[in-house]
């Protein structure tokens, strides 16, 4: 199994814990990734707000570079990248006019985009390509007793989700259960965290993060597991502000890949739990495997 890998800007910045924990986990499971050379920012939601043609072109440059690797599948761990790259592909295939513009623009860089690379999320790859059985085999320190609220956020299931249910996704639930954790019933798993509004309009944006944290605590979760660097940031970084505005709702938020590393017994520099501002203090005990 080998995938072209599109890290995206966040995974090199505030979301570095995602990459730092995901790559060792994939390696541990025998999944090879090849970082796309000279990838650029996917455009995220901000670019769509300015010019969809350019947003599409920016995303298409990455698709074109991915096609150059000769790999048919592309891994995009960040939710925004996953959405934008998928969306660009939909647009290119649905709207011939858009395709014409983008094709010519890429031409000027000597690039071609066929638009047939499958853009996939790590959850999709882990469950459908690697499989839960293979994952269970690698669990040496089951997360017994850890109560996890799985948080999918919005953009991996909407609107282009193909690998999971839009209203009630379960891939991460199943993954966490395979790690030995207890999954908390939490009806907010696909609600919005506030996105970039936490920074631009804190009153509105932070309130959404606050609701998520509050409800997770109320349902008895020890930790929130996330798949998106922006969600992680919003749920992790603003506790002081949230406490000042509403009430303290301290609960750690980590990437699902960090929990996988923990269950696989990977080293601390591969689970990078120290990157969270609200630390997860949980050390699973090893089990003797027969």
């Amino acid at each position, binding site marked *: 199994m080998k995938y072209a890998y599109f890290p995206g*800007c*966040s995974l*090199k*910045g*505030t979301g*570095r*814990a995602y990459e730092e924990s995901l790559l060792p986990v994939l390696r541990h499971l025998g999944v090879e990734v090849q970082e796309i050379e*000279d990838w*650029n*920012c996917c*455009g*995220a*939601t*901000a*670019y*769509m*707000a*300015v*010019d*969809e*043609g*350019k947003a599409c*072109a*920016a995303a298409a*440059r990455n698709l074109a570079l991915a096609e150059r690797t000769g790999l048919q599948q592309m891994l995009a761990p960040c939710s925004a990248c996953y959405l934008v790259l998928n969306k660009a592909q939909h*647009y290119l295939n*649905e*709207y011939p*006019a*858009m395709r*014409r*513009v983008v094709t*010519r*623009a890429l*031409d*000027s*860089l000597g690039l071609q985009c066929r638009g047939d690379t499958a853009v996939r999320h790590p959850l999709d790859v882990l469950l459908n390509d690697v499989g839960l059985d293979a994952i269970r085999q690698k669990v040496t320190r089951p997360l017994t007793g850890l109560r996890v609220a799985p948080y999918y956020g*919005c*953009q991996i299931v*909407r*609107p282009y989700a193909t690998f999971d249910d*839009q209203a009630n996704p379960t891939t991460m639930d199943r993954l966490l259960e395979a790690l030995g954790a207890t999954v908390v019933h939490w009806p907010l798993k*696909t609600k*919005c965290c*506030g*996105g*970039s*509004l936490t*920074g*631009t*309009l804190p009153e*509105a*944006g932070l309130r*959404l993060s606050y609701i998520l944290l509050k409800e997770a605590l109320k349902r008895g979760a020890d930790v929130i597991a996330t798949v998106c660097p922006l969600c992680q940031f919003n749920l992790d*970084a*603003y506790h*002081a*502000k949230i406490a000042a505005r509403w009430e303290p709702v301290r609960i750690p938020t980590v990437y699902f890949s960090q929990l996988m590393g923990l269950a696989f017994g990977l080293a601390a520099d591969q689970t990078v739990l120290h990157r*969270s*501002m609200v630390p997860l203090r949980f050390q699973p005990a090893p089990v003797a495997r027969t």
Partner: protein
Amino acid sequence: MEIKRTIKYEADRVPGFGREVMSVPGCEALEHCIQCGTCSGVCPLSIYMDYTPRQVMELVRSDFKNEVLRSHTIWLCASCYACTVECPRQIRITDIMYELKQRAIKEGVYPPRFPIPVLAEEFTKMVRNHGRISETRLVTRMYLRTHPLAALGMAGLGLNLMKTGRFSLTQDRIERHGEMEKLMAAVDRENGKADA
């Protein structure tokens, strides 16, 4: 008591605006809107909006361009796509919001120092110039342009980011810089041709 006249005259409309928006890829289904309000019902941010998403849809369809482009609603959209997947007429409401944001930015009709379009602008500028985003740098720039004082309030957050090794003010960039500039220029050229 301050009173305000809310009546709309035909002259307040910009005829053709609705059609124009509906002709943009992804925005076509707006003509099927039945004003059921599902979009507002599922929108996590509708509670802050001056017009609910449903009202924005109707204002667009009825050519009230100025009202729509000046509304807060379009900037409050966090792109969570809940409305788009729930809409019983499969209207891509999120994409329509994007389209309206684009038009508002192009026409410069948003409050000065309003952080959301500033962030979008800084974002695209950074992508165009460097190909990649350095988040902390981007956010810092946004605060400097909008609320320089508020940036001080973020100091604690910055400190925490530094502590967890997630703070960086160096600009990440693609190797073949210039390519993004070239790509965007080419898009402009192609679109110009199409317009002509």
